[in-house]
């Protein structure tokens, strides 16, 4: 860590590249989240029925069926074999996310992401303690729990509580008291556990993460030799543990962030004043020398977690 770590996160990048460029992926992401919500709202609001349904299942232009593969899988475990339409829809969605990165769903589509991002922003503003931090394996236990309960009860179990569908469906079909669920996630992330929901518990994100384990689209710390330890990328990354192996690797280690937890949000690209990160593909083997005098035996992640 050096003195630069004390400057507000992203400040240097803003001064160097301008505000717009230092927020481009954040802005694109918000635009994408709004876009995917708007597609569904065009019908009920404007009477333009290009897309019908919601994130759980939809029909676009009367021909393209899409189904949430996580829900389809729970349905099968619950003992129902879906009709072909739903299966094709799940396959399309599954293959798409397997290629572009499962957790692209999290950062570019999921309507809960702005909620938990908002909670995190306020969390930082208020300077709160990070609170309860579940172990890194917890989200896999939650995922397993959902599958077990679906199987044993014969229901699509997670849909009984899933705040994502509650919010998405609520906005498109009518909210009821679903807002309370969303508020609960917000408050949980704000006061109980920093980045608790998306970073540690949500089984949907975990499922998509697993789906994208071998995805093509990846972030690379290509110019890691230029890193000046400002720690800004660690501060903005919702899954900061994924950065260390790539950024702090030696010349032999790949600069690609291959951890499935990375959401491909691109915020690390935004805030880095040294322009270390970039989007690339998994087979990119452009040499990326590590920094001299730095090895992986000195991970910065623990220190930065307090940041």
């Amino acid at each position, binding site marked *: 860590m050096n003195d630069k770590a004390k400057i507000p996160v992203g400040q240097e990048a803003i001064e160097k590249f301008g505000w717009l460029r230092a927020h481009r992926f954040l802005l694109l992401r918000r635009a994408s989240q709004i876009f995917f919500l708007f597609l569904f709202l065009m019908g009920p609001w404007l009477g333009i*029925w290009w897309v019908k349904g919601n994130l759980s299942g939809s029909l676009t232009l009367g021909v393209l069926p899409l189904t949430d593969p996580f829900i389809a899988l729970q349905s099968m475990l619950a003992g129902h074999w879906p009709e072909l339409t739903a299966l094709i829809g799940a396959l399309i969605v599954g293959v798409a996310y397997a290629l572009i990165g499962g957790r692209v769903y999290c950062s570019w589509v999921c309507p809960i992401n702005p909620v938990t991002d908002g909670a995190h922003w306020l969390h930082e503003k208020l300077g709160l303690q990070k609170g309860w931090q579940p172990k890194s394996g917890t989200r896999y236990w939650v995922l397993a729990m959902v599958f077990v309960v679906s199987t044993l009860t014969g229901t699509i179990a997670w849909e009984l509580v899933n705040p994502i569908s509650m919010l998405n469906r609520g906005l498109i079909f009518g909210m009821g008291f679903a807002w309370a669920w969303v508020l609960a996630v917000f408050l949980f992330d704000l006061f109980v556990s920093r980045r608790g929901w998306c970073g540690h518990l949500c089984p949907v994100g975990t499922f998509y993460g697993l789906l994208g384990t071998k995805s093509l689209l990846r972030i690379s710390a290509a110019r890691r030799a230029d890193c000046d330890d400002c720690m800004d990328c660690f501060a903005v990354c919702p899954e900061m543990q994924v950065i260390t192996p790539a950024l702090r690797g030696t010349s032999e280690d790949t600069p690609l962030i291959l951890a499935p937890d990375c959401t491909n949000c691109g915020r690390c690209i935004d805030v880095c004043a040294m322009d270390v990160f970039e989007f690339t593909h998994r087979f990119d083997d452009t040499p990326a020398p590590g920094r001299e005098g730095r090895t992986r035996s000195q991970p910065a992640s623990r220190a930065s977690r307090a940041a």
Partner: protein
Amino acid sequence: MSAANRKPKAMDRRRFLQDSARGIAGCAVAGMGLAYLARDARALPAQAIRPPGALAENDFLASCIRCGLCVRDCPYDTLKLAELGVDGPATGTPFFTARDIPCEMCDDIPCVAACPTGALDKGLDNIDDAKMGVAVLIDQENCLNALGLRCDVCYRVCPVIDEAITLELSHNDRSGHHAIFMPTVHADKCTGCGKCEKSCVLPGEAAIKVLPMRIARTEAADHYKLGWEDRNPLVDELIDLPDRLPGPGTDNLVAPGGYTPDALPDPSMEGGFSPSFQLPGTGGTGQ
């Protein structure tokens, strides 16, 4: 760097096991909560009617992904997705309330066609075969027809008129010289569309209501024999009805309380008759 790294391996393992145990226990508790909710979700309120072709409730909760495509393709805005804390059915699942908007029984059944998962069974190709529920004339004290008036509205609006619902004539005991045209639902033909419930002219609730099959229908009493439908003997050769000949203790009106020897059917029998069937252990004297 951190303290944990310097500890011996055994400590690491112990810590790992503890953490795992904690994680598993936490998930088990959460899982039980979720399983409780899943059970709870099955309690579909009586007046929430599932769309045509919907699988039985347990299977429906395993198959409906709550996409609302059935809702979107219903031309009459009959269906809606249950909202959390407002509507009774499991959150996000489609249903309708007959008194608000009934199902119009579209010939092409667009809701079933729209369903991508089969939660609405594609096997339903004739809307007349739908079994969303069954109408029951639930308040016979206020139904105008039951009072002897001629309202007939529920009967007239029924898309399966004269099959699903008929007007059954009976004597009006109150006036003494009028008829009562009782609206009578025939469950094997009623689709549960709810048109009758919707149109019942009574203010507030309807006198005729669509109820789910599980509430409205019982199982037939198969252990009773309906003699007017099936005239074959219950057990061949064993009990041979009618076998009651006049005799002591019978309710024979020709010779109350007993028999008269001159009324014997067969003069060759002395001092009485013996029934063709004798209960075991009664020594042949029982009557």
